[in-house]
């Protein structure tokens, strides 16, 4: 396999708040290969967005990247000067955001905002950049691109705005495009179109796409590899097909199980994962997922598991893994998925 263009090693990002330190990203490591599409999945508060922001050093205060390395072409982005970092942003690594309505400046014309990305980095003239912006708008399939370029963001529909943002991201043909929940704020039908667009662009341009989302369906449609995050840590990662077919971490398993299926029987209840996301100020001891895990064992309460290869190319951090849960705890036929329901282990019975 080709060498990775991005290597994230033990990334740590913290938020220093009034009540304490929140470790939003607590030791995240992964590689990104040229041209691939990687999904980062997790619920709100899992640290997926902060991870992405950390890569470009855009974490808002009171947050700071406090440790680790982000190697891009052998340069550690975290050690670069502000000016050098600025050059990388938008040119080599671009990022687009969730809500195109608020992410575009309302008082500047759309075409100009795209051209700006080029003006800031290349030596193109203003006229050239504006022309290229129109081309980009056509590339992202916006009809009547010339007049759209002269419009202000509020004159465009949600889908068009997001396409314009994608155009902005691709303006300088970056090697990596990070998309932070690009479809969440859009209508369902438009979502599908945007995802299709991103998939095509990924193929055509060869830019690696990092797709951040809480929606497993998006990952299934677009990505080749996926990283599952929970409470600031990676709990599972690997090829999409493999993970969808045979998830090893209980969290991943629960996520997949909770997607309602068209072909499910009517009397089957909708399942959701019990409990709420953990408080990152005082994360649970041991495995962070154990308070909500149906398959936990004693070890999960006290020792934190680390990422291990549980199948070829698939890493998970779990003491139990789903293979064992299926074999010993009857996971496949489980009806009650409350914490500890399958393994029968509860806090009160611990001998500590």
């Amino acid at each position, binding site marked *: 396999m080709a060498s990775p263009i991005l290597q994230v090693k033990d990334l740590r990002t913290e938020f220093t708040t009034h009540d304490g330190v929140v470790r939003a990203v607590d030791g995240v490591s992964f590689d990104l290969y040229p041209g691939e599409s990687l999904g980062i999945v997790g619920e709100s508060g899992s640290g997926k967005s902060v991870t992405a922001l950390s890569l470009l050093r855009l974490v808002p205060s009171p947050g700071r990247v406090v440790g680790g390395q982000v190697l891009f072409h052998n340069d550690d982005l975290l050690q670069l000067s502000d000016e050098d970092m600025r050059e990388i942003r938008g040119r080599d690594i671009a990022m687009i955001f969730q809500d195109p309505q608020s992410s575009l400046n309302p008082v500047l014309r759309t075409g100009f905002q795209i051209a700006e990305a080029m003006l800031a980095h290349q030596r193109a003239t203003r006229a050239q950049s504006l022309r290229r912006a129109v081309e980009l708008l056509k590339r992202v399939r916006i009809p009547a691109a010339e007049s759209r370029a002269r419009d202000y963001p509020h004159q465009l529909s949600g889908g068009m705005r997001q396409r314009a943002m994608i155009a902005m991201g691709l303006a300088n043909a970056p090697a990596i495009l990070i998309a932070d929940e690009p479809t969440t704020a859009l209508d369902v039908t438009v979502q599908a179109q945007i995802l299709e667009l991103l998939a095509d662009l990924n193929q055509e341009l060869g830019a690696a796409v990092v797709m951040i989302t809480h929606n497993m369906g998006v990952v299934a449609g677009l990505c080749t590899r996926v990283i599952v995050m929970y409470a600031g840590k990676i709990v599972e990662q690997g090829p999409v097909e493999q993970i969808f077919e045979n998830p090893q971490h209980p969290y991943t398993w629960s996520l997949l199980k909770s997607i309602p299926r068209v072909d499910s029987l009517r009397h089957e209840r909708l399942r959701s994962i019990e409990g709420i996301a953990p408080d990152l100020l005082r994360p649970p001891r041991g495995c962070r997922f154990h308070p909500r895990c149906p398959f936990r064992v004693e070890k999960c309460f006290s020792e934190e598991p680390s990422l291990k290869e549980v199948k070829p190319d698939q890493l998970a951090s779990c003491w139990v893994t789903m293979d064992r849960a299926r074999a010993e705890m009857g996971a496949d036929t489980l009806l009650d998925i409350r914490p*500890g329901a399958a393994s*029968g282990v*509860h*806090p*009160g*019975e611990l001998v500590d």
Partner: protein
Amino acid sequence: MATPATIVASQPIAPEQASLWSDAWRKLRRNRLALAGAIYLTFVVAVALTALVYTPYPMAKVGVGIPYTGPSPEHLLGVDTIGRDVLSRLMVGAQVSLLVGVGTQLVVLAIGVPIGLGAGYFRGWFDQVMTFVINLFYGVPNLLVALILVFLLGPSLTNIIVAIASTGWMDMARLVRGQTLSLRERDFIEASRASGARPAKILFGHVLPNALGPIIVQATFGVPAAILFEAFMSFLGLGVPPPMPSWGSMAADGIVAIRIAAYMVVAPALALSLTLMAFNFVGDGLRDALDPRQRR
């Protein structure tokens, strides 16, 4: 497998519910500028009250000292152009300022709030007429209107209060109208209406309490505006009639002597500026404290 899980004791579930007012009070106490302002204002009120019973010299008595004398142990702030004690006049001037400031706002509240409520709630022709009248009042600079009113009615404290209030009620009415317009769509108002409550009850029992925050802030800012207004008018000679001293008229009198006796202007100007500043600090503090958008 059927064992019920033992739940580990954890912290209380929700933070204690604080009402808007206790929350606001907490935030206000932490605002040092507002606190300083409040302290200063208490001082001013104390001075004004003291002046009711005691001033070093009678404020109107001419010739208690040699005119144009600077500050001295007998006259802490000096003597003015016709021999009156500046300190005593300053003290009584505090009364005037406070009366005008607070008085006008009371009138503004009495006029502006009901009009605003009515216009915002009932809409229709009442709203149209009121908006038209409000815009009419905005057509001319308020200072001129007030000056003409005082000119017509004759200078007296009450007339001045009326004149200033009549140029200021529109802002309050507009504010209240806006608040009413947005509040009337809220569900709890619908619920009241549906349960048959009479408009007066809805307006005064539900809408008004919710709009109270911005109203209070507006009124608090209105006080220094009114004091400033009165100072303007006095400066132009149409303020409280002599011998009542107003800080504005004292400043106007003192300007002529600015080269030789600067203290005559400085004392009232300083008093005015500090008092206005104090009110503004308190107003700022109130506005920040009552702003529901800010957390903590």
